[in-house]
């Protein structure tokens, strides 16, 4: 009888060739974890090439999952278990594994050729390089082939099932049932490829049985369900959440959703997901280019729809002139930018936060827009609704800054009840007695939304400067200055309509760690740890970047020091220093990867003159 150890959380990373089905394996295990009531947080990482040469370091794909019995904020700094399906996957991931961690290997893949392809001089299973770890070599390829040989599928298809065998092993290791995964497999291949469903289930069961039978593992681990707030949950990625958010905004406003986009990593899933919503009357168009995509969205907004486009950095650069048109014509479009590493084509599949200044200033002329940024994958839902709420209330383009980490990462999402959702009012202007397209609402400074088809209000708009109130073309210099100030003032008025910035931790103290976007989890976790050490450290997270909450300046002045970790060279820091004259300290990482909690903790300790807590985490189990 093997022992069973109760643990609180586990961080596991699956790694293999990009053809090995790593992302599917990771998603399925995450899905099962979420269904078991764990809190989950994930970090998928895959190459930009669809299929880099098999077995090479460039072709390695990985998926990290943190699942726990308590609320977690990050996918975990260092995995405790690494599943490596070939030598290249071992080589590219071993440095992240905690000291003493567990490695499950596909020993069939450790042939001389594969080992050399991964750049090892010697077989790492034979030399002493892995001596600090618990290694479990399993002939996964051959056991999988044997398990599925009676299904009649081809050798190639049989090889594709080895990720399910692996999943079976891991499912045993964490004391779970394979039944939910079998149901998932049935759903995935529902009716279309019954032989593959059968083979996958056989491989899964074989992996489970293997782990159960063979005296390989000394014991298994059990993690209880997390105590999340009551409600109905589903697992969600940031891109899925954004999709559901914009759909919700359309339903709340009673206006149709129009999405135009040009395929681009890592934003394409939004186009895919929205294209499946024809029954909601959602219109999606795959545009001929990035410029056309925003042009179409602007045209739809002009006609009274919720105009939306989505892209990533290079596409944002192309859209900038058209965003300026939406600024000038004061039309409510939302532009989703799922940021990735730049400049230029940059790192298409890696995350970065380096498009903030582009969002703020990346247009000709004085061209202010509203900017929002979700903090977690689930928050992508809420902030997508916010983007449209602000856009239609203030008649302005809104840029929604997500990033690759949020877009592909996932976590449990409590599905909101209808009554929890905000209201979005849309009133088209129809008063013929007041045919002034640029007359402004005194409270919001927004102009009326007058859509074609409204009798008696025929008028012309465009990119040329507008005469205040009438909206006629005007080259008057005094009027231009007035209009520049009105457009800027309108964006600033949004501050009256967004929540104040809240602080976690002491309201006054030694250090505030401020963040924006996807750094939320790591900052929150790091500052909690710092407080547990007895340090006077608070955290705050900006989800509204233009304008920012009106109490931001006040909060910055409540702390001796302010630290701002960003996945760029310090873009928000530059803006805040200029605005508030506060000497903010930066922590900047530009490696295409999210922060580790530890990196932020070390910086906190450095600033506060404490000893560094630990350089390498120890294995939790």
């Amino acid at each position, binding site marked *: 009888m093997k022992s069973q150890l109760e643990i609180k959380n586990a961080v596991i990373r699956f790694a293999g060739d990009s053809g090995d089905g790593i992302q599917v394996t990771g998603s399925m295990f995450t899905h099962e974890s979420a*269904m078991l009531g764990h809190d989950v947080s994930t970090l998928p990482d895959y190459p930009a090439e669809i299929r880099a040469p098999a077995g090479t370091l460039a072709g390695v794909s990985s998926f990290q999952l943190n699942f726990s019995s308590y609320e977690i904020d990050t996918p975990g700094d260092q995995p405790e278990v690494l599943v490596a399906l070939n030598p290249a996957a071992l080589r590219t991931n071993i440095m992240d594994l905690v000291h003493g961690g567990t490695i499950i290997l596909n020993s069939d893949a450790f042939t001389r050729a594969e080992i050399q392809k991964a750049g090892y001089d010697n077989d790492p299973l034979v030399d002493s390089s892995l001596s600090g770890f618990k290694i479990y070599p399993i002939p996964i390829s051959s056991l999988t082939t044997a398990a599925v040989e009676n299904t009649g599928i081809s050798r190639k298809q049989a090889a594709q099932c080895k990720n399910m065998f692996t999943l079976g092993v891991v499912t045993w290791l964490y004391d779970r049932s394979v039944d939910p995964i079998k149901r998932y497999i049935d759903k995935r291949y529902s009716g279309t490829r019954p032989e593959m469903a059968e083979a996958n289930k056989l491989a899964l069961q074989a992996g489970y049985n293997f782990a159960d039978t063979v005296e390989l593992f000394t014991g298994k681990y059990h993690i209880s369900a997390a105590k999340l707030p009551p409600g109905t949950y*589903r697992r969600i990625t940031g891109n899925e959440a954004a999709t559901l958010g914009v759909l919700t905004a359309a339903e709340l406003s009673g206006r149709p959703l129009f999405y135009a986009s040009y395929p681009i990593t890592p934003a394409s899933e939004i186009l895919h997901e929205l294209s499946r919503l024809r029954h909601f009357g959602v219109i999606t168009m795959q545009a*001929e280019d990035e410029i056309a995509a925003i042009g*179409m969205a602007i045209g739809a907004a002009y006609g009274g729809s919720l105009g939306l486009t989505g892209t990533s950095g290079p596409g944002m650069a192309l859209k900038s002139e058209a965003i300026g048109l939406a600024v000038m014509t004061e039309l409510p479009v939302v532009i989703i930018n799922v940021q990735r590493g730049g400049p230029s084509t940059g790192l298409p599949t890696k995350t970065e936060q380096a498009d903030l200044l582009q969002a703020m200033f990346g247009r000709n002329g004085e061209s202010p827009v509203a900017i929002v940024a979700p903090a977690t994958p689930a928050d992508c839902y809420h902030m997508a609704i916010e983007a449209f709420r602000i856009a239609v209330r203030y008649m302005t383009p809104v840029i929604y800054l997500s990033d690759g980490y949020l877009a592909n990462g996932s976590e449990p999402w409590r599905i909101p009840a209808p009554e929890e959702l905000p209201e979005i009012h849309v009133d088209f202007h129809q008063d013929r007695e007041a045919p002034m397209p640029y007359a402004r609402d005194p409270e919001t400074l927004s102009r009326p939304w007058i859509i074609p088809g409204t*009798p008696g209000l025929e008028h012309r708009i465009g990119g040329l400067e507008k005469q205040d109130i009438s909206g006629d073309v005007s080259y008057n210099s005094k009027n231009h200055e007035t209009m520049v100030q009105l457009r800027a003032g309108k964006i600033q008025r949004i501050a009256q309509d967004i929540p104040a910035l809240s602080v976690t931790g002491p309201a006054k103290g030694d250090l505030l760690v401020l963040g924006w976007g996807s750094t939320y989890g790591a900052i929150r976790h790091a500052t909690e740890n710092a407080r547990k050490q007895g340090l006077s450290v608070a955290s705050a997270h900006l989800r509204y970047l233009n304008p920012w909450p009106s109490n931001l300046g006040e909060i910055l002045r409540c702390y001796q020091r302010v630290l701002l970790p960003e996945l760029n060279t310090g873009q928000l820091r530059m803006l805040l220093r200029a605005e508030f004259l506060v000497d903010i300290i930066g922590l900047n990482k530009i490696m295409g990867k999210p922060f580790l909690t530890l990196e932020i903790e070390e910086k906190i300790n450095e600033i506060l003159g404490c000893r560094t807590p630990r350089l390498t985490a120890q294995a939790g189990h």
Partner: protein
Amino acid sequence: MNNKQPESGNTNPSNSYSRKDFISNEDVRWCPGCGDYSILAQMQRVMPEICSELGIPRENIVFISGIGCSSRFPYYMNTYGFHTIHGRAPTIATGLAVSRPDLQVWVITGDGDGLSIGANHLIHCLRRNIDIKILLFNNRIYGLTKGQYSPTSELGKKTKSSPMGSMESPINPLYTAMVSEATFVARAIATDSERLQEILLRAARHRGAAFVEILQNCNVFNDGAFASFAEKSVMEERTLILKDGCPLVFGKKRDKVLKLRGGTHGLEFEIARLDDVPPHKRVMHNEISGNNYLARLLATLDETSLPVPLGVFQSIDRPHYGQKLREQIQVAREQSGSGNLDKHLHSADTWTVS
């Protein structure tokens, strides 16, 4: 989803208007003598007929333009109008027309706006057969930027930016539209008032993307660009008015005909006397044929040696993008029911925490 537009409150249920109803308060600011004046006048004259015949109220007419002299056009029409950015009018018109099938959307563009900076969009909105009417004012020059060669300027054209002559072959607007699968393609001369009105009316009636090239003289930077065939005195002799189901007859005395000839260097047109070609050997113009290579050939005639065809080259009945989209929405609703948000939010695997 609620797709209701504002109450029409239409005070003019028969949609009867006069030319004056389409003249805006804006002073027209094209150069004196510009060909654009005539195009504007013909559009304002024909609009009442378009509205009454098609049952469209004025407020449902929208003119969308890019940048250039031609793109000032929407300011002068008393309808809804949107003066957008250089080359992108087709994209904005696409978003509007697809989301608002109740509107009649016109795009006003020029040779620079539509065939240089915006050529990509032009091609794709024609290919998609979006229900918009595109009028391309072709003066073969950049006017608003004061006289550089345009993508339709002839090879060797001397301009400020090509003092020794343009080294670029011009793009052919009609042929480009045809190979882009445009369903309606026509050409008119700006000053040829009645025929221009007829073409505008035909374009308005067309369901799908309509493309009209309007040859328009820029008397400041490219005066006389079309004089060799557009001047009243030579027009009958030098142009060929296309008529559906009729042979390719032209000439002051209507005594000449275009004849197709095959030979060692391929297929080409030659001019013959009408009497010399027996009726059964005459090539007939056919607007509605979807695979009409004749129309493509006619779009590429050498204007120095052959007559310049005017009128409707093709007018093909094919479902437009908006129709197909609405069909998909209907099918999706039949299959899945009209979308229910709460149900959709719960449509993945869920679990409950109590």
